[in-house]
């Protein structure tokens, strides 16, 4: 099958074009390096089915990061098998810089067609490009598009087969001179006044105005997530479970005889003859309540807010403002993006470390995230559980984790060999998020959560029930109980929760409810559960990204620091 490779600089809209061509939805955002893994999809050209590959963005064909290595590898494979076409997606508002990659691609003897994207924005910016002239010079087809709105995509598809291998000859050392000559012939720039968004862009990156803006943004984001999350729980999901689902389950319970093995697995324990959705621990009660009524509302709220900021272009600016702070823990400012993604789910957070240039940064970033950045599912459960004791109690949990993040980061930065490179990044213009794209992305992420998390949660609840009824948890509790009791000050029953934490952290935190812990114990258990080991899904990705050796090192740090911090909290609180 023939392959169509979508290639171009970072943040030129490759993933949007990909979604348009194949109907396959992939995450796209307004910052360089959103795509770190290639996605595949299919489309038809006439009667022929072809494979379309969304290649990670690259500035040149000499890779400087893991994501760029992936890009170059895909290109080379395609050249070798001689069945590829490159759609070179070019940011029309930055033609000069983008042509560098175009000329490099034209040297590789592979059919190329140029997609001049952000065509609408070039007009707003007063840039006019003579497409016919550009086609004549490069000797390949050039199609202007605006991928977000879909304009020009049809023409791109119709003309895809015009792609041809051309050699555009010029001496390498004259490259920029050559590009300069092209620009002079095809591009005219009109002077124009700064727009409001541009003035806002400048203000948000100057420290005097930028720092207050950043604090405001973080505060509003936080408030918004809480407001939406709590609102959905209090007004939608809890009433549905309490008023509609509970009576149904009570009927089922009496049909099952209000007890017995099957009853315990499906419904769980009854408290004073009633179902307690947090505590009963049946598959149909707690097993459904936790993902839908406790976690999903926060997943929705978090990704709504994150997606908005991703698409607006604010995140890299936050990275620049936080650069100095991030250097203290051995990362540069953009490291904050993988941490923010990790707050949603550690898996994409770990994958995002691929845009980093050095092994050292990837190790520090992945380890810090796995230890001290709880995912939104975990956070939702902690908020549900500890939040009852007020904001101070929550501050204790999240404040401790933040402190751990800083201390372990400082230590790793000191102790690990090597230095971390400085920030060097393109800051995209602000763009007003496009509603359709935002809704689609939010839906993808929520669907992803439902698809990945719910089977695991149900499985977790099921396994817990089986282990309990086989007496295995009692046995392990006796075995590990003394350590957990003496060092962490937790009842031996917490062992079960720590076991399930290897699978899903949210379920593990839910398992603390029936233990009747004191506030101090709840805080310690929440912190230790967040730190001691990543969940199964994150673990699998980390092994792949870091390799077995580094993952083992990272795991030692996790386990050791979890026991140390838990023990300290037990002494101090």
């Amino acid at each position, binding site marked *: 099958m023939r392959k169509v490779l979508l290639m171009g600089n970072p943040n030129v809209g490759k993933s949007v074009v990909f979604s348009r061509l194949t109907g396959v939805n992939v995450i796209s955002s307004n910052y360089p390096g959103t795509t770190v893994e290639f996605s595949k999809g299919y489309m038809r050209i006439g009667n022929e089915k072809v494979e379309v590959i969304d290649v990670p963005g690259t*500035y*040149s064909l*000499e890779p*400087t990061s893991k994501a760029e290595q992936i890009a170059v590898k895909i290109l080379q494979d395609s050249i070798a098998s001689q069945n590829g076409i490159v759609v070179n997606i070019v940011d029309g*508002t*930055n033609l*000069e*810089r983008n042509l*560098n990659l175009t000329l490099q691609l034209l040297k590789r003897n592979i059919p190329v067609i140029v997609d001049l994207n952000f065509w609408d924005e070039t007009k707003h*910016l007063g*840039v006019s490009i003579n497409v016919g002239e550009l086609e004549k010079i490069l000797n390949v087809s050039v199609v202007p598009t605006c991928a977000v709105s879909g304009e020009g995509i049809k023409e791109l598809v119709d003309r895809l087969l015009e792609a041809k291998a051309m050699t555009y000859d010029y001496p390498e050392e004259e490259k*920029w001179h050559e590009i300069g000559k092209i620009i002079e012939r095809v591009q005219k720039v009109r002077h124009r006044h700064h727009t409001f968004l541009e003035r806002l*862009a*400048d203000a948000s*990156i*100057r*420290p005097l105005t*930028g720092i207050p803006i950043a604090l405001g943004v973080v505060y509003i984001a936080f408030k918004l997530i809480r407001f939406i999350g709590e609102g959905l729980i209090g007004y939608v999901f809890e009433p549905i479970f309490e008023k509609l689902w509970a009576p149904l389950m009570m009927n089922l319970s009496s049909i099952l005889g209000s007890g017995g093995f099957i009853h315990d697995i499906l419904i769980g324990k009854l408290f004073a003859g009633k179902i307690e959705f947090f505590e009963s621990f049946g598959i149909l009660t707690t097993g459904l309540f936790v993902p839908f009524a406790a976690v999903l509302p926060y997943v929705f709220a978090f990704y709504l807010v994150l997606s908005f900021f991703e698409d607006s272009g604010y995140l*890299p600016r936050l*990275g*620049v*403002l936080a*650069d*100095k702070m991030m250097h203290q823990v051995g990362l*540069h*400012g953009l490291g904050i993006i993988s941490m923010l993604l990790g707050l949603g789910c550690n898996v994409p957070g770990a994958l995002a470390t691929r845009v980093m240039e050095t092994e050292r940064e990837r190790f520090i970033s992945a380890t810090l995230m796995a230890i001290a950045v709880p995912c939104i599912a975990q956070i939702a459960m902690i908020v549900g559980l500890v939040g009852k004791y007020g904001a101070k109690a929550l501050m204790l949990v999240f404040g401790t984790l933040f402190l751990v993040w800083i201390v372990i980061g400082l230590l790793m930065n000191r102790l690990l060999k090597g230095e971390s*490179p*400085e*920030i*060097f*990044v*393109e*800051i*995209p*213009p602000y763009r007003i998020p496009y509603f359709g794209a935002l809704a689609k992305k939010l839906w993808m992420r929520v669907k992803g959560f439902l698809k990945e998390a719910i089977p695991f949660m149900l499985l977790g609840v099921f396994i817990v029930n089986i282990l309990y009824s086989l007496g295995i948890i009692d046995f392990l509790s006796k075995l590990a109980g003394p350590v957990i009791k003496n060092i962490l000050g937790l009842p031996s029953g917490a062992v079960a929760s720590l076991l399930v934490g290897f699978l899903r952290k949210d379920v593990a935190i839910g398992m603390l409810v029936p233990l009747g812990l004191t506030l101090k114990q709840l805080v310690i258990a929440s912190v230790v559960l967040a730190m001691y080991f990543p969940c199964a899904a994150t673990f699998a990705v980390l092994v792949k990204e870091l390799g077995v050796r580094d993952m083992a090192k990272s795991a030692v740090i996790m386990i050791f620091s979890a026991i140390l911090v838990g023990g300290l909290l037990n002494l101090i609180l």
Partner: protein
Amino acid sequence: MTIDLTRMRQGERGKVVDIQGGWGLLRKMETLGIKQGTEIVKVSSQLMRGPITIRVGNTQVAIGFGMARRIMVEHKK
């Protein structure tokens, strides 16, 4: 007058005349369109030797302080 990027003031314009570094640095700068002859505007610098942000064409680029010190600019008052 030729000065390095960190010494320019916010809002000042200039033209890159030299990048003092090896092939690696030059190439890295080039990928984001910063090379001899590029016209730039300094947008901001972060506190305590934090990164410098400049405008190049229609994009902005943030550059670590250490790297910014090696970019020599002929600046216009």
